[in-house]
């Protein structure tokens, strides 16, 4: 999976968890929780939905890697290296 594919999936997932904010307008380098007004339960919702959609498990210890949109995209690309979107 490449950067563009991972970004598309993440933005779609964020849009389902926080439909009142267009994730494409969010600064991709800023903290997602502040930019999109997400709390820790919302973030777990994002993680659960990404896991379901991508068929991976995102362990709790990896959540510090998921701070911004860019961080999360880089993490997903690393995790899904060699998997086509």
């Amino acid at each position: 999976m490449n950067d563009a594919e991972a970004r598309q999936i993440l933005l779609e997932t964020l849009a389902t968890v926080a439909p009142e904010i267009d994730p494409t307008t969010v600064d991709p380098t800023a903290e997602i929780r502040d930019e999109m007004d997400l709390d820790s339960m919302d973030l777990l919702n994002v993680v659960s939905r990404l896991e379901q959609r991508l068929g991976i498990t995102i362990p709790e210890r990896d959540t510090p890697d998921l701070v911004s949109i860019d961080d999360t995209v880089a993490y997903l690309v690393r995790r899904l290296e060699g998997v086509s979107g």
Partner: protein
Amino acid sequence: MIAAVAVRTCAIAGAAPTELWRALSDSERARAAAMRNGAVQARFVVGRAALRALAGEILGIDAHRLTVATSPLGRPVLAEVPSAGVSVSATSDLVVVAIAPETRWLGVDTERTDRTAVPPLERWCSARERQLIARTPDPRRAVLILRLWTGKEALSKAFGTGIVTPLVDLEVLPAVTSGRAPPDAVRWLDLAPGHQIALAVWS
């Protein structure tokens, strides 16, 4: 041992009023003004103003002169009273502030009880907590899950570790079994209708 703690709730209704902005320090006002999300900004302003007011009252310090620093893990710290515990939590319509003058082992967390889109939280629960959930029928199960979640979040904040400590290891029901915290370290407070509020504190 259970420590003395003061807890206050403040409602949030739209943008924070001017008098609350005035209660903030220059650097807090600048930080709030830079926030692009209005709801996040309102929560920050109401939370900091409430924190300053409560700290001023129970610690006997002029609220305007307090320096509220932030620890590396994002937790508020009172520079003038570094031994005091401080914790803040918020939903879309409520801020909860807790201050324990004599212990840093303090954490508070709140969630709205009508919250929908709750992720499958069983995964972040211990075996005993999962058994408890399985034994509890709806609609009490939804209440129990929010109790577990807020309790774990409050305990995590009290340890000062953020989400780095696996929540599965932060067992709160039927009793706290984590680290140095006593079994009764977590309590649930009935302070605001429609909100679950968990408080973790010990000394």
